[in-house]
């Protein structure tokens, strides 16, 4: 009975948790509700994923209004898998917030922090599950508005400017998306994504379809932080509270990437997007630029959080590279990297949050001798770094392997070389941390900081362990990525 309502419950549970938290007002009960709600979303996302993989498309009519007139939630292996990733990261991050937030957010704002986290989670899950183009925009704005508030809660005053800049860029991106779906609606008279996927090919490709494609692509790319539209990202990740950096780096851009894949492969179809014009070549060029330029910028950062932020922009390049290959293999690599990078980068930001708590800042210089003063955190951070590079035995290797195989299957041998070269850049920026942490003396005269509290260390370590786990045994994540890729490429017919 309840199982048929899983798609809507996944969105409603965190959405209801937010006002409950605001009513509770006290820090501890708010945290408890937020943690329970995030565990509940994972408990809903798992059976939903299992059903979507075994049964195919699940359609849920909101309020029993039959689609395409009513709003429909449409779940298949692709969005169920990304929804699983988002709720999994939520379960890692929420317990972490208890101590992670106490030093970074004022005590009287704690309940607002948790309420915003819940709204953000709910918005992201809504974007994934909805089968309605305009509904998607509303959820996009719910998650974005919550994100702006969360970033502004960072204790540095630059967090405010970072949040303001993201607000401008994010709103422009969302508005461009609305223009795009407006043009599609004027042409087809429908906002239901599955219905659009049926009606659009029948129209051929008139100029207004192409204009809509262009608006949607650029608007969503702003949200993805696809190079060169990434300018909001480094400051937003660097100055927001650590738990927020981890959550956003692991989920927000990933959800937007899913939206782009959905529009490219399911709604417009690869004949309109890739075969008839140069979208693939442009996306390939931008992905290559993203793999190299931000990685070089990351090498010169003096702040570890900013270093990780630039590395995120660079890693997004690998995912869009997979999309630009326009094959099931490429999509599999994209989805697999989406999962693996979420674990890696989320874990690294969580570890870093513990270090920031003890050292009082994230400047690279402060981390001198960290290998001796905080051995567990430093070691976990290095393991995460190895996964960013793509060393065999870590999750990062698996998705790069998929990516290189997919590129070779398309006959693009030189891309394999490009992936290797940009991994070498990752070696350099991870090495900078290793050098400071292991080969410099810890500052004298200061008491050794000691490890972060267990509530922070355990979730962080769990993510790093998961990152090694899925590096050693990729059979489950690989088969999920393939099912997701096939669902995306196969369409909703």
């Amino acid at each position, binding site marked *: 009975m309840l199982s048929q309502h899983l798609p809507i419950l996944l969105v409603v549970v965190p959405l209801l948790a937010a006002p409950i938290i605001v009513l509770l007002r006290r820090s501890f009960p708010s945290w408890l509700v937020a943690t329970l709600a995030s565990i509940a979303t994972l408990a809903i996302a798992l059976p939903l994923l299992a059903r979507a993989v075994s049964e195919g498309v699940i359609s849920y009519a909101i309020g029993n209004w039959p689609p395409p007139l009513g709003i429909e939630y449409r779940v298949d292996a692709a969005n169920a898998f990304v929804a699983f990733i988002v709720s999994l990261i939520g379960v890692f991050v929420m317990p972490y917030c208890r101590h992670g937030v106490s030093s970074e957010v004022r005590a009287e704002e704690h309940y607002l922090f948790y309420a915003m986290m819940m709204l953000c989670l709910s918005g992201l899950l809504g974007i994934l599950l909805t089968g309605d183009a*305009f509904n998607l*925009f*509303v959820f996009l*704005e719910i998650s974005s*508005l919550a994100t*702006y*508030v969360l970033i*502004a809660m960072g204790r540095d*005053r*630059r967090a*405010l*400017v970072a*949040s*303001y800049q993201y*607000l*401008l860029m994010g*709103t*422009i991106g969302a*508005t461009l998306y*609305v*223009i795009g779906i*407006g043009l599609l*609606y*004027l042409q087809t008279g429908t*906002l239901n994504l599955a219905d659009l996927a049926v009606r659009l090919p029948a129209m051929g490709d008139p100029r207004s379809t192409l204009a809509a494609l262009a608006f949607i692509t650029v608007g969503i790319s702003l949200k993805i932080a696809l190079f060169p539209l990434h300018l909001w990202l480094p400051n937003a990740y660097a100055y927001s509270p650590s738990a927020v950096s981890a959550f956003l780096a692991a989920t927000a851009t990933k959800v937007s990437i899913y939206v782009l894949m959905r529009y490219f492969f399911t709604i417009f179809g690869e004949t309109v997007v890739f075969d008839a014009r140069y979208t693939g070549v442009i996306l390939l060029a931008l992905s290559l630029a993203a793999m190299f330029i931000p990685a070089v910028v990351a090498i010169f950062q*003096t702040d570890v959080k900013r270093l990780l932020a630039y590395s995120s922009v660079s890693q997004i390049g690998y995912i869009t590279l997979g999309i630009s290959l326009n094959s099931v293999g490429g999509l599999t690599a994209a989805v697999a990297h989406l999962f693996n990078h979420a674990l890696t980068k989320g874990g690294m930001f969580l570890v870093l949050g513990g270090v920031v708590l003890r050292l009082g800042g994230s*400047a690279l*210089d402060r981390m001198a001798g960290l290998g001796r003063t905080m051995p567990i955190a430093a070691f976990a951070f290095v393991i995460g770094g190895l996964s960013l590079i793509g060393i065999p035995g870590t999750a990062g290797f698996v998705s790069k392997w998929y990516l290189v195989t997919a590129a070779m299957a398309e006959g693009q041998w030189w891309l394999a070389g490009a992936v290797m070269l940009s991994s070498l850049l990752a070696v350099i920026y991870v090495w900078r941390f290793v050098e400071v942490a292991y080969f410099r003396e810890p500052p004298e005269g200061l008491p050794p900081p000691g490890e972060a509290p267990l509530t922070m260390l355990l979730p962080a370590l769990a993510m790093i362990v998961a990152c090694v786990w899925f590096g050693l045994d990729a059979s489950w994540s690989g088969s999920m990525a393939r099912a997701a890729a096939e669902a995306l490429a196969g369409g909703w017919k």
Partner: protein
Amino acid sequence: MTFAGHYAYFVTILLLMVGLFIVIARSNLIKKLIGLGLFQTAVYLLYISPGKLIGGVAPIVGEGFEVYSNPLPHVLILTAIVVGVATLALGLALVVRIKEAYGSIEEEEILGLDADDELKSRDRS
């Protein structure tokens, strides 16, 4: 393809461009938000104007109501207006906080202050 037939689209595009230009070119954070508001409002026009038919009435099923305007764009734009108001309110709240923290709402001055801080912290270390 007459100018009059596409009048609403020309106005929409003009407003879009004016709004976007203000966001990019102005340094004052409040003026940027005004530009952003204009940019969003122009999109409302893109939705509303094609939904209206000359001589169209509200969609009522019955005798004598044959030509009617599409109500859906209005509903969508009501939602979009709510989203736009929320965004603007949050943007203005951020500007208040920025003014409290920096004592300025000019982007160039704020970035200058940040650059000074950066230099000082580097000198110390």
